[in-house]
């Protein structure tokens, strides 16, 4: 097997992976970085983020306000030391991107513009029209091209981590072009593989978001933390699940039910604000969990609009006018017109909640370090507990910058400590490869990959959707376990070594099933309602028993074992989330 010796291997070349790679490359040109990704960097799903990245910018704002918004937005499940560091570093990272050429939208005086965003008390979301993630990703990618010590391995699909005696020593991957396997021996491994929205049937997430890093860490014995917290974005296009940014509401778009009524005022986010004059942190600028939950109630009450693609509410942006929509929301206009045939300039656009983001992920500390020495995780695949039980829109783009850099520099520090031992790598890599070869060569499978995948997705939506209860979660847990069994009988029909996406999808399905079981099992045991995790049978937040992070550990043949760890509270004791716009 071909072997690459490198100091650091980064898996995933989206925003987090690229930021980390640049930080390492800048810190020391002698440190070698292998940047391994299953797609070319610019295909990474960071490109689909639209609205912007949060960081305190204006004199009427403060780090403390950003801290408070994030902690209450996360329903007090955030680790507050992490939030403190985050809000402090956020503006610096956004200026850094500015220096690297990010085409941020500008005010007339030439300074970077900020827009309002859900759950944020002040305007602090830096944006590049409605393609902010795209521009951040391409700015990072293009900037990374100047560093000779970053070696890219594009379209290499990672199979598993290599580790022994509590230490991670590399990864094994498959080159898509040749089907050849490649072992990476490294002193540090940084996972930056993004989320796992594809475990659900209706998601904003691209096809590549299959939880590969989460599953690899989980199989290596690292716990996945707070996996029950899945964010539904309130405004997805029906049918495709394409995201319409929160910026639509930040700019003044309103949500109405089939009677034309702005229903959010009935769900603790009123009173109503005047059309065209959005007020921060209330009504349409409430947090995503609350807005998606309000949709569910309207739907149950029969006040949603029937469309060809299911029940919806309407996002009305007509009052913004064509010029403003073209300037601030051009992608939204193109997407809504193309995919559902509604032009926001002339029509209210049907929307419904759609799975968007995993608050949970690989358990890390503030430095991005996991329980497995030498293994780091950053971005959506990680859970450093910035976002708690509900992430505020525009915090995650900044998160991948702030903690991408911090983890990278920590990994550099660690290079000088201890001895990496790649002695066991060869054998482990061969084992992992043998598993893939067996899957590829199996010819007596009686299960269909597509069917197992569909059943997994539907089961999660049925049992672990916006609202959950014990019966539904029990059923989902059982279904996922059964699907794990059935997975053993799937057959890959494509036997080619060259760009075999049938094989890739089979490996991704394994990863998705592993992640899915942690979502269902964690949700089942959290018998309270907090943030994005809402139980119909336990409707209140329970700080006595559940002001805790859940940690899911893999157990062969059964559901994961769940342990609990403390939340770090520094200065904000659990309080009431107030989106009534009381100070308006």
């Amino acid at each position, binding site marked *: 097997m071909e072997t690459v010796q490198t100091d650091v291997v980064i898996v995933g070349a989206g925003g987090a992976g690229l930021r980390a790679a640049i930080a390492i490359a800048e810190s020391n040109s002698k440190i070698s970085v292998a940047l391994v990704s299953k797609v070319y960097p610019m*295909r990474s799903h960071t490109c689909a983020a639209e609205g912007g990245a949060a960081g305190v910018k204006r004199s009427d704002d403060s780090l403390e306000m950003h801290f408070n918004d994030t902690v209450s937005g996360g329903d007090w499940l955030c680790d507050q030391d992490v939030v403190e560091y985050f809000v402090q570093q956020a503006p610096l990272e956004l200026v850094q991107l500015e220096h690297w050429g990010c085409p941020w939208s500008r005010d007339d005086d030439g300074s970077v513009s900020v827009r309002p965003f859900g759950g944020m008390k002040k305007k602090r979301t830096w944006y590049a029209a409605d393609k902010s993630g795209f521009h951040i990703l391409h700015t990072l990618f293009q900037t990374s091209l100047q560093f000779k010590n970053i070696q890219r391995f594009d379209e290499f699909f990672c199979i598993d981590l290599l580790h022994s005696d509590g230490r991670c020593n590399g990864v094994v991957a498959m080159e898509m072009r040749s089907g050849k396997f490649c072992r990476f021996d490294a002193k540090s491994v940084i996972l930056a593989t993004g989320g796992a929205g594809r475990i659900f049937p209706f998601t904003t997430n691209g096809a590549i978001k299959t939880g590969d890093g989460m599953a690899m860490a989980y199989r290596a014995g690292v716990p996945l933390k707070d996996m029950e917290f899945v964010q539904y974005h309130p405004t997805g296009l029906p049918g495709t699940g394409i995201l319409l940014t929160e910026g639509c509401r930040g700019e003044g778009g309103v949500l109405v039910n089939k009677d034309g009524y702005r229903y959010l005022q009935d769900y603790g986010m009123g009173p109503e604000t005047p059309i065209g004059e959005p007020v921060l942190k209330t009504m349409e600028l409430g947090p995503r969990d609350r807005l998606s939950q309000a949709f569910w109630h309207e739907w149950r009450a029969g006040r949603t609009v029937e469309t060809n693609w299911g029940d919806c509410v309407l996002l009305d942006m007509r009052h913004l006018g064509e010029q403003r929509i073209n300037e601030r929301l051009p992608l939204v206009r193109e997407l809504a017109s193309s995919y559902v045939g509604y032009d926001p300039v002339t029509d209210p656009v049907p929307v419904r909640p759609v799975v968007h983001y995993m608050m949970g992920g690989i358990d890390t500390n503030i430095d991005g370090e996991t329980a497995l020495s030498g293994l780091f995780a950053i971005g959506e695949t990680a859970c450093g507990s910035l976002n708690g039980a509900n992430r505020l829109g525009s915090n995650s783009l900044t998160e991948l910058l702030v903690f991408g850099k911090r983890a990278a520099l920590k990994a550099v520090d660690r290079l000088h400590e201890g001895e990496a031992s790649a002695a066991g790598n060869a054998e482990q890599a061969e084992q992992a490869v043998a598993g893939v070869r067996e899957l590829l060569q199996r010819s007596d499978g009686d299960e269909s990959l597509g069917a197992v995948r569909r059943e997994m997705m539907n089961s999660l939506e049925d049992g672990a959707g916006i609202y959950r209860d014990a019966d539904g979660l029990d059923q989902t847990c059982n279904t996922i376990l059964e699907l794990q069994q059935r997975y053993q009988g799937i057959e890959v029909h494509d036997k080619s070594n060259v760009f075999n996406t049938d094989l890739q999808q089979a490996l991704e399905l394994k990863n998705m099933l592993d992640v899915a079981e942690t979502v269902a099992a964690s949700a089942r045991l959290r018998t309270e309602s907090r943030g994005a995790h809402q139980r119909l049978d336990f409707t209140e937040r329970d700080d006595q028993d559940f002001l805790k992070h859940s940690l899911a550990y893999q157990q062969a043949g059964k559901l994961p074992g769940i342990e609990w760890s403390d939340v770090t509270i520094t200065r904000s004791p659990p309080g009431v989330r107030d989106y009534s716009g009381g100070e308006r």
Partner: protein
Amino acid sequence: MSQAELRTRTLEIEVMRYDPEQDKEPHFRTYSVPCQEDWAILDALNYIKENLDSTLSYRWSCHMMVCGSCGMMINGEPSLTCKVFVRDLPDNVRVEPLANFPIERDLVVVLDDVMGKLQNAQTYIIRQDPPPADDVEYKQSPAELMKFKQYTMCINCMVCYAACPQYNLDPEFTGPAVMALAHRYNLDSRDQGRSERLDILGDHDGVWNCSFVGACSEVCPKHVDPAAAIQQMKIEASGQWVLQKLLPGRKS
């Protein structure tokens, strides 16, 4: 959109197949796909992959015209398959890999050439003077932003290369997307690397090789207009050439 518009129509989709381990030449295979009228052609490929033939290989991810993975030839025209809709297509559709690139497998092409050109084009901010302090941004007026913003929209989907007659004739040609990106940095008020880039791109394989057919700009799914970028660079390159002849050693 009315219910009637969402009716199903069966498309006969001819897909180019090629597995270098088995096939001497690419060939076509036809699939009958029951398509909804609101589908993109990408949805039809996904239907084939999931229901008819799991051995078909192609790239895709975002399904929202921004990741740039799914560029292919649809009835001979290069486009993103998530941007071409069933409602605009006849009953017979031919899907091929992007023209002007070697085929890796089925609808997947080899991108090494353009990725290599991008690697060399210095598409990042170059400074002669130090940047502002870590917490101070450059001032850039909305008008200065507008000068280059269009050229930042490139998603590297390579559709323009599939349309470019010059790239077809001469693979050494740097080509539209990379030139437009280099020009994007040349026009950015924060950048001071224009003359270095012109040293690379102002030569025969760069701007001077473009024959100004403008096909790149016509097919660009993001309206980047690489042809205009190359035209503007050509003017700059001739200016720099004259200056260097008159004042050797000077960088404009």
